[in-house]
């Protein structure tokens, strides 16, 4: 039954994406422009700059690709709630025979599947078209870290969705988080160049650890043992954030039902 529902949600999202033909083309063009920007930035800086011992273009490719995937996926929750509030599907969806948090999780899974496909395309274009040097990637480790990164991001997305339901300003949370990630999580420069207090902030953001683990797996062929540190930290974040976010979402829904603001935007 759950798989059947996931298929239904994924089908809805796929059909909607494909039918926004212009949007799909613009998305692909934007992705190519991002990769080209990273390529020329790395060339301008020169081959002497090797953050964490890896080629800078590869560093940028993984950093920007992963950050965009996670941030866009997090914002997907808020956008989905906003869209449902604007179109009026919110209340209808929340009163079907399927529990609301299941609908949210299914929507998230579908959104993340789409973002993972985008990330795979992004990295493939970087490696095969722009010739980013990637040697002996450990794809199994990469996938394990990616799953954990997705779990923590799902939780953050659900928290932002809860804020959207209560304050109708979830997009502000996503914007703030996005800015923090770009500054602190080692997306375009290594965390090591930050002053010490900022490094402490970076440590408190799951994306920093996800970025670190994914780069190690993809660019340096690190094994699961090599990335044990980031993996354990991500597990810890997931264990705390996932139940907390589901509780917050459920509380937000009940607040909306009590106040009659579920469909407010």
């Amino acid at each position, binding site marked *: 039954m759950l798989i059947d529902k996931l298929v239904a949600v994924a089908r809805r999202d796929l*059909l909607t994406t494909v039918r926004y033909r212009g949007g799909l083309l613009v998305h692909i063009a934007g992705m190519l422009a991002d990769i080209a920007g990273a390529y020329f930035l790395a060339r301008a800086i020169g081959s002497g700059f090797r953050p964490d011992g890896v080629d800078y273009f590869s560093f940028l490719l993984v950093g920007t690709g992963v950050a965009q995937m996670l941030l866009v996926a997090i914002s997907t929750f808020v956008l989905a709630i906003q869209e449902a509030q604007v179109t009026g599907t919110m209340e209808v969806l929340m009163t079907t025979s399927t529990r609301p948090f299941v609908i949210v999780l299914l929507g998230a899974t579908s959104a993340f599947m789409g973002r993972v496909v985008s990330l795979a395309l992004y990295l493939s274009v970087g490696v095969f078209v722009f010739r980013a040097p990637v040697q002996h990637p450990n794809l199994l480790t990469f996938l394990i870290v990616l799953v954990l990164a997705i779990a923590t991001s799902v939780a953050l997305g659900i928290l932002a969705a809860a804020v959207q339901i209560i304050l109708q300003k979830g997009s502000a949370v996503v914007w703030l988080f996005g800015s923090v990630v770009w500054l602190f999580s080692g997306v375009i420069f290594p965390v090591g160049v930050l002053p010490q207090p900022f490094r402490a902030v970076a440590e408190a953001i799951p994306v920093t650890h996800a970025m670190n683990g994914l780069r190690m797996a993809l660019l340096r062929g690190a094994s699961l043992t090599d990335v044990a540190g980031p993996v354990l930290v991500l597990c810890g974040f997931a264990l705390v954030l996932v139940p907390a976010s589901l509780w917050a979402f459920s509380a937000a829904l*009940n607040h909306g039902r009590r106040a009659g603001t579920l469909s407010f935007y």
Partner: protein
Amino acid sequence: MEAVSLESVTKVFRHRPALFNWLGTERSGATRAVERVTLRADAGQVLALLGPNGSGKTTLFRLIATMLLPDEGRILVGDTEAVVHTQAVRRKVGFAVASERSFFPRLTARENLAFFASLEEVPKAIRSSRIEEVLEIAELSSNADTLVQKFSSGMYQRLGISRALLKRPSVLLLDEPTRSLDPGAAEHLWKWVRDFGIKRSTVLIATHNFEEASAVADSVAVLSKGVLLSRKSLSGRIGVDELRSFYFEQVDGARHWERSVHADR
């Protein structure tokens, strides 16, 4: 078929001004949308709710459909209490919302219904035939494969009724179901509601249309400002004019009473 009972149900919407209400133009206070309403629709009965705008008809529906939580009182669908066993009630109640656009615009009517049928846990083996059945009831079969963004208001409304019927609800809530329908479509719907009410479901219908209430209802309840003014059986099939007179007697009587109370103060 199951009865619906409301026992002394109250719903208050509280308005709090924004945190920085510097201009001081935002109203604060509370709206008593439903005030100690006690009402019962017996199994298989068609009950019409009549009342001026803002009388609480839609709020009552949203309470029964679990979109809202009551501040006081009990709502029972059959033997199931809506606040306690929310999910069980959701499986029983179908709500055709008045909001036109509560669908996914880039999906066809059939695709929208397939999506909601999955969330409503309609068994996969009978899903296609169920969708065909509800499309036929709403006279939408010939538009089943049209993107719903191209639908007219009346078609949206009929699709909303189709969606509510997908799970074969034991209680069906219709909020102004013929507001955007042409007379022919309205007649078709009225005939169907009478048959449906007798055969399968308890139907509650909120309307401003005396002809509609007279055509379909076994009894009417008149609401004004959240208060249940009176209830009348239509078992002897009273005429539209008689129903209109009864309605204005109740509503005008309530207004006179309210004015006299204010004058005494």
